[in-house]
């Protein structure tokens, strides 16, 4: 079976019409429970994140950021899964999950600070206001076994599978089609299956690992891999926010109930560059980009909402929120202070470390020696 033939969960056609695929029918109840406000919120999440993301790309062009990995095109996969997560859940992102970070409460200027290389982190995952969002991870796939270990701990501590859906915890870990080739991802799946972890492996297959197509990463559908480890897996239309929501909701709740790990392959498309450092025109065709442009996740949801009666006032309000967020982060990141040199020594170790302390003291003294001097 080729990728194109693999059954896929889809509720919304690219034109926004509601037409559940056969694979979506078992999940239909989850979508039917979403009211207008919830549906509107998903659109808002996607559109506002896109405004932020496009602003961030411009900020990189203007020299404010060292690098920017755009989420452009992947908003539905991210928003649906993040809205499906419950407040007690823990999120292990890769480095492009800007919509997820926003939904979980992370101040997006922190993500800009990371990509400005003013910090290696940006926020405190243990602070409740950040919605249990762990830090971005830049070495591909390394966060996946962390998520599995964390989920193992939830099991050992009885923080899951008690039967209380509002309290039982689960974990989502995000990774991509490139990272899917990393050994860490596979080892994490071996552990997850063996220890029956409350965990959703959420793969955003955006078709490209920088310049290398998914066909080089996988000769068979990526969804077959997790299934091969004994992990129930769904392949979804990653540009359909309802499919992402419904599949993630069902799988997270099955997993938190003690069902063990689950996996989703969200078939989506990286409409922008991998990061601001590459040039997609060198490796992919205009036709391909145009084809995926017609499957834009935001246009699709907008058409769906318009068909349900959403008016121009709503969309104007969303646009305004996006513009306000973009303006806010633009102002704040431009004024972002460089970290104090002493900060590089501050948290290398948790406990006292004479060598690092000596080097910190030396640098401080050395720098002080220039004050008012020739240098």
């Amino acid at each position: 079976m080729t990728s194109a033939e693999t059954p896929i969960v889809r509720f919304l056609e690219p034109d926004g019409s509601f037409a559940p695929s056969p694979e979506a029918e078992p999940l239909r109840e989850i979508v039917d429970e979403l009211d207008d406000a919830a549906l509107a919120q998903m659109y808002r999440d996607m559109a506002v994140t896109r405004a932020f993301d496009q602003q961030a790309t411009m900020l990189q062009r203007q020299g404010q950021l060292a690098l920017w990995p755009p989420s452009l095109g992947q908003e539905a996969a991210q928003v649906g899964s993040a809205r499906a997560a419950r407040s007690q859940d823990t999120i292990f992102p890769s480095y492009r999950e800007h919509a997820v970070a926003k939904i979980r409460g992370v101040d997006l200027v922190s993500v800009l600070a990371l990509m400005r290389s003013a910090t290696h982190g940006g926020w405190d995952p243990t602070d409740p206001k950040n919605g249990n969002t762990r830090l971005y991870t830049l070495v591909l796939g390394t966060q996946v076994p962390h998520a599995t270990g964390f989920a193992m701990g939830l099991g050992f501590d009885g923080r899951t599978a008690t039967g209380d859906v509002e309290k039982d915890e689960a974990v989502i870990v995000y990774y991509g089609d490139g990272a899917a080739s990393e050994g860490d991802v596979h080892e994490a799946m071996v552990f997850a299956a063996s220890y029956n972890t409350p965990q959703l492996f959420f793969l955003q297959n955006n078709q490209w690992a920088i310049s290398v197509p998914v066909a080089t990463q996988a000769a068979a559908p990526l969804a077959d891999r997790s299934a091969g480890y004994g992990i129930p897996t769904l392949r979804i239309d990653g540009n359909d926010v309802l499919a992402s929501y419904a599949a993630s909701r069902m799988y997270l709740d099955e997993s938190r109930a003690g069902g063990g790990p689950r996996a989703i392959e969200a078939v989506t498309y990286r409409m922008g560059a991998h990061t601001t450092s590459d040039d997609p025109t060198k490796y992919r065709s205009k036709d391909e980009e145009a084809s995926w442009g017609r499957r834009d996740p935001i246009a699709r949801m907008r058409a769906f909402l318009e068909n349900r009666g959403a008016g121009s006032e709503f969309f104007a309000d969303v646009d305004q929120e996006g513009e306000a967020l973009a303006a806010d982060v633009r102002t704040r990141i431009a004024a972002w202070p460089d970290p104090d040199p002493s900060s590089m020594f501050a948290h290398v170790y948790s406990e006292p470390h004479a060598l690092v302390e000596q080097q910190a003291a030396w640098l401080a003294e050395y720098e002080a020696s220039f004050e008012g001097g020739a240098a």
Partner: protein
Amino acid sequence: MTFETMPFARAMNAGLRRAMEDDSRVMLMGEDIGKLGGVFRVTEHLQRDFGENRVLDTPLAEAGIVGSAIGLAMAGFRPVVEIQFDGFVFPAFDQITTQLAKLTNRHEGSIRMPVVIRIPYGGHIGAIEHHQESPEAYFAHTPGLRVVSPSTPNDAYWMIQDAIASDDPVIFMEPKSRYWQKGEVDTEHRAATLHATRVIRGGSDVTLVGHGAMVSVLLQAASIAEGEGISCEVVDLRSLSPIDYDPIVDSVRSTGRMVWAQEAPGTTSLGGEIAATVAERAFYSLEAPVLRVTGFDVPFPPAKLESFYLPDADRVLEAVDRVLAF
């Protein structure tokens, strides 16, 4: 009775047991460490006594073991990982160096990484390829890690407990050739803190420094030298990162000569770092350059050749003769 005589591996086992009794968040992970008790029996009976949720016979995947240990630490556990043999740590090298070592720094202190990686290391056991190596310098080179190596049962007993109690990641290098060596363990009082270097034999002519299995080689060399009228002071490094230089420098200031010994190849190794620092700090006391006795810069050879590769007392004494003749 606070003193018990036991082999090194048994002392490790007793130290692990005590750490698990003292803190219910301590858990062990590794290949064959449960039912079998580890290939060196260091964890024998611990799964029986603490259960399968605290002593995990993991899948055979080192990156997965260390990666999931990191996640468990994020969930509030204190995992102690056993890497079965030195040469098998490399699949986990990325998780150790890019993740474990840097996570506290990346989080600007909002999380801690109390993970211990136990690595049985070194030669002298006649084993096949990848089973006799000394990879400690890779880890000592990595900011964010602490690296220690006990040389006696007493240190094994205490240092493993102190490593587990540390809120920083600790690479715990166990000289596997010493596992069967018996020694006295004081189960009530620790002799030194985790990162203290110790002078274990007094002397006045030459300072001999090393860690792990090399310490017994240095002691053997010192007693042979004594018969020849040469007085050697022996220093057990114990902590490879950070390095507690004061006892070494004090010793060299009194003897004026130093020989370092290690099993690992010499290039870009601990010996070079220590020799350079001693030269900086004790330059005017040195009567001779610091000499290093190391493994050769070749892959660890087939065990039938290990006696030619590993520094022994004769090679240490050859270096002692050279620093004295300088």
